[in-house]
């Protein structure tokens, strides 16, 4: 191993320098590298490709390797920016190198988490707050349980066991979902033993990797129910449940993203921009919604890099780009968050 490393490095360095020298013909071209959460990856890629089309000298690569790995690479200085569905904990922020001048956590987009199921029903099933918490706690194990029947009067429910499908890997989606479940359980005076984390010990569930893996497993398993990002559930044509929100309305996640937008409205914006919506109380709000954050340094050694990334992110906040987000199944940012982000991004430009 030790013997091979220097030669490997030399070969790599040669390869990279060759690549750079061959690509570098327009001298002012700049390439930014980002990595992290898988959930916003389709949107980020679309945004960055559109930006590249308008500004051919700016390339942005984004590799969806998961929130935790994204934070690690960002901390190690391997990437220009990171991305995380769960934001960053104080512990993680403390580990960042000093020369970053701190981290900027930017909630660039938000998404709804759908409860998808595989039971042949004509209309979307209605699940009340206590019902869906109990399903994931395995207190309700049959589709024709009286509590589910009470939420769905007049619907012929099948005699079938419920199979819970969860995420096998550690993920921001699980973090957002368990945050919401814990909040609802608390409001319902129920215990929530799994806890809140990016990976939790579920009781009796089958698990798959990634949002797409969970979607495939739900499709495959009769009687299954699981949590999937709305965009992925729509892509797999899964049935989605209408969930009861804190104001006792049953809301379905849908194309317009209205329920999600309602949920984001009026949420308090903390100083570090880690906006948590554990249990939205607005009327018409879809109950399980989460922001996803892009992580930038407050100070970049390369001034051009700093200006470029700010320009890109400001561009992503414009209305057409936010409309792209909605089309891809994400939730448009509410105006107050957009204003706040714009201020955050331009303010540093002004101080320089």
């Amino acid at each position, binding site marked *: 191993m030790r013997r091979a490393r220097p030669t490997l490095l030399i070969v790599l360095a040669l390869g990279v320098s060759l690549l750079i020298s061959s690509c570098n013909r327009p001298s002012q071209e700049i390439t930014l590298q980002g990595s992290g959460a898988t959930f916003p990856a389709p949107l980020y890629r679309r945004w960055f490709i559109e930006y590249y089309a308008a500004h051919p000298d700016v390339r942005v690569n984004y590799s969806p390797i*998961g929130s935790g*790995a994204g934070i690690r690479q960002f901390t190690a200085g391997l990437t220009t920016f990171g991305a995380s569905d769960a934001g960053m904990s104080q512990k993680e922020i403390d580990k960042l190198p000093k020369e970053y001048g701190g981290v900027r956590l930017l909630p660039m987009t938000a998404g709804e988490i759908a409860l998808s199921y595989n039971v042949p029903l004509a209309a979307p099933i209605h699940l009340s707050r206590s019902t869906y918490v109990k399903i994931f706690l395995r207190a309700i194990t049959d589709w024709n349980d009286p509590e589910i029947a009470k939420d769905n009067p007049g619907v012929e429910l099948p005699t079938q066991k419920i199979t819970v499908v969860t995420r096998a890997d550690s993920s921001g989606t699980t973090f957002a979902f368990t945050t919401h479940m814990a909040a609802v359980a608390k409001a319902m005076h129920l215990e929530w033993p799994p806890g809140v984390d990016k990976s939790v010990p579920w009781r009796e569930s089958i698990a798959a990797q990634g949002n797409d893996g969970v979607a495939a497993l739900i499709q495959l398993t009769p009687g299954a129910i699981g949590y999937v990002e709305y965009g992925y559930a729509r892509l797999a044509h899964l049935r989605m449940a209408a969930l009861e929100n804190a104001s006792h309305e049953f809301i379905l996640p849908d194309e317009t993203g209205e329920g999600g937008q309602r949920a984001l409205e009026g949420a308090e914006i903390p100083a570090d921009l880690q906006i948590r919506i554990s249990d939205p109380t607005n009327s018409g709000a879809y109950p399980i919604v989460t922001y996803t954050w892009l992580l930038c340094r407050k100070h970049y050694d390369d001034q051009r890099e700093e200006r470029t990334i700010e320009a890109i992110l400001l561009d992503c906040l414009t209305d057409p780009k936010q409309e792209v987000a909605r089309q891809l199944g994400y939730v448009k940012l509410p105006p107050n968050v957009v204003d706040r982000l714009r201020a955050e991004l331009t303010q540093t430009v002004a101080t320089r």
Partner: protein
Amino acid sequence: MSAMDSTRVERVEAEGIARPPTSREIAVDRCFRWATRILAGFSALLVALIVLLIAKQAIPAIRKFGFDFVTSTRWDAGKSQFGILPELFGTILSSAIGVALATVFGVAVAVFLTQQFIPRWLENLLHNVITLLAAIPSVVYGLWGIFVVIPAIRPACNWMHAHLGWIPIFGTPLVSVGMTPAGIVLAIMILPTITAVSRDAIAAVDPLMREAAFGMGATRWETILGVTLPASKRGIYGSIVLGLGRALGETMALAMLIGSTNVISPSVFSPGDTLAALLANKFPEAATPVDLGALMYAALVLLILTLLVNVAGELVLRRDVTRLRREEAVHKPPKNETVA
């Protein structure tokens, strides 16, 4: 013309052979010898290094959790509780199902391909087709398992659960992913290994032995079961051990088919988890040194497990060989007597 040519060639060759090696040839020879030595040593060193590096990173976790790690059943990174008993159980059960199926089919195929049941060209064709199975990527096997195997076997499995559910190994229905689909896909993945190695072993049996058996009036069936298979036992065992080694470490297809759930169930239809799948699922986002240490500990356990299997296989083979030798020694004297 041709006679002249051939004498010239002979003369040149004679000179070439008589000539002492030049210093260049000696140098090349020495360099080559050392290069092979270094490379051979290097590969052994690599194995040792891998084990050492994993062990080194696992040491904090070994100190902290000790042997409880192997006997407890909970994996909760948030609470720093780590136990791999369900994964250990799942690894062994899924591999056992896979190896059992693959042995039956693999040895049967190997016999079929060597005992002149079909023309030689067809034998070669079939052999190549089976070898091609080894070239299919693991992910493709996983997808194939999800979309083809599971829907195909589900009715039969659930029928068995409905009618034979009182037997613990059929105690749960097959919802979708689980031990049985994982084992079936594993069996197909290790089929080429078992078939190729046991085919070579069976083909290497002295044809005189077979002919002698036929000569004594044995049927083809009796010859295969009584002579050919026992004579190639060692190679067949070897193929099973190789297959088991691959089955234990198989990751991607199993991560997709096993269900990744923390339960120990005697039912072969129940979902479960394997060590390799656990590593694949938890490694990318293991954030703290404690998490990483626990995963390295799990990797070390998997390594030791495969090592034990290989050693056990080796021991079985050796015992088999010594027993054969002893039998030979027992049988020889009377033979000599009759000759005398």
